[in-house]
């Protein structure tokens, strides 16, 4: 076994998904689950339920009345949206080493904005998978945080190379390392038992045309690119990978729509830093 495989299997042993999230995922996959079943599980974790209520009551959602219980939040937002908030709260607490001026909050802002943008693209297209789109966008680069924390020397080398050579972090990793954050993300999400669909997005979003005909990797490919172009957070490099014409067609975006689309994305994401407070 290579030293990378040894190390990453240790990471998956240490970095497990909290029991509360495992239980929420199990409950959501069942058909007889009620809002109060999920609320009961979330309420066993005071820190998590407080964070969820804080997010639900932030300006981002803009509810006129304060939401004071998890049960009510689930009724209003739905099971999957509340699960997404729980996952957002969990991943944002993952440990992270600041390298140069690359801070974790800038990275998470980028990931949350990618999630919001993917959700918007899926709504715009009229497909019923907005919560899956948000989760896919949020987690599409989860491997970056794991690489940063558990392979910090390799991460630092690739990060500096990408900055210097104006390429993406992924290109730098492929050039310099024996592994990359996409592979790491896939391994971590598998170890957390995330749905195959979300793992596939993480695996394929950077080059969707060549590997899949599924819509979600294409939407996240575009969401990632739009957030990079609009500088909505920091993905770890200053590059904009070439966006696919095929993905644009699949997402129903005509060239003439791009200006108004980008303007809408700016509007949709303008309050996303509420997630970081």
């Amino acid at each position, binding site marked *: 076994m290579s030293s990378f495989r040894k190390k990453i299997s240790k990471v998956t042993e240490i970095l497990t998904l909290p029991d509360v999230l495992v239980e929420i995922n199990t409950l959501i996959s069942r058909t007889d689950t009620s809002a109060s079943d999920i609320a009961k599980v979330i309420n066993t974790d005071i820190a998590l339920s407080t964070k969820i209520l804080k997010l639900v009551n932030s300006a981002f959602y803009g509810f006129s009345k304060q939401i004071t219980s998890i049960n009510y939040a689930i009724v209003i937002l739905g099971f999957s949206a509340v699960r997404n908030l729980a996952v957002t709260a969990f991943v944002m607490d993952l440990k992270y080493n600041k390298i140069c001026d690359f801070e974790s909050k800038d990275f998470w802002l980028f990931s949350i904005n990618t999630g919001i943008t993917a959700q918007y693209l899926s709504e715009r297209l009229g497909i019923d998978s907005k919560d899956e789109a948000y989760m896919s966008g949020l987690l599409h680069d989860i491997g970056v945080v794991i690489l940063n924390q558990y392979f910090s020397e390799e991460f630092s080398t690739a990060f500096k190379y990408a900055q210097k050579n*104006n*390429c993406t972090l992924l290109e730098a990793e492929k050039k310099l390392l024996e592994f990359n954050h996409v592979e790491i993300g896939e391994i971590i999400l598998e170890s957390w038992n995330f749905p195959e669909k979300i793992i596939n997005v993480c695996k394929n979003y950077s080059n969707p045309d060549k590997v899949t005909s599924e819509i979600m990797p294409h939407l996240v490919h575009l969401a990632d*690119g*739009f957030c*990079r*172009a*609009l*500088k*909505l957070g920091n993905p770890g490099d*200053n*590059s*904009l990978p*070439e*966006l*696919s*014409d095929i993905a*644009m067609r699949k997402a129903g975006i005509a*060239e*003439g729509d*791009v*200006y108004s*689309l*980008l*303007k809408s994305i*700016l509007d949709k994401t303008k309050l996303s830093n509420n997630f970081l407070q």
Partner: protein
Amino acid sequence: MIKPDHKDKIESNLNKGADSKHTCKRIENMFAVHNENRTMIAIKEALVKLAEEGLLNE
């Protein structure tokens, strides 16, 4: 003599112009490496327009 409120307006427009120049430079750098396809051309044009309107984050 320029009225103080008008002076503020001029300064604000000058700053906006400088920001937009900086942003356009960033956009140029971002697209410099691409063999531009139709999508990339459309995105670049939209970004420049947004930068000129002072709507981009920097």
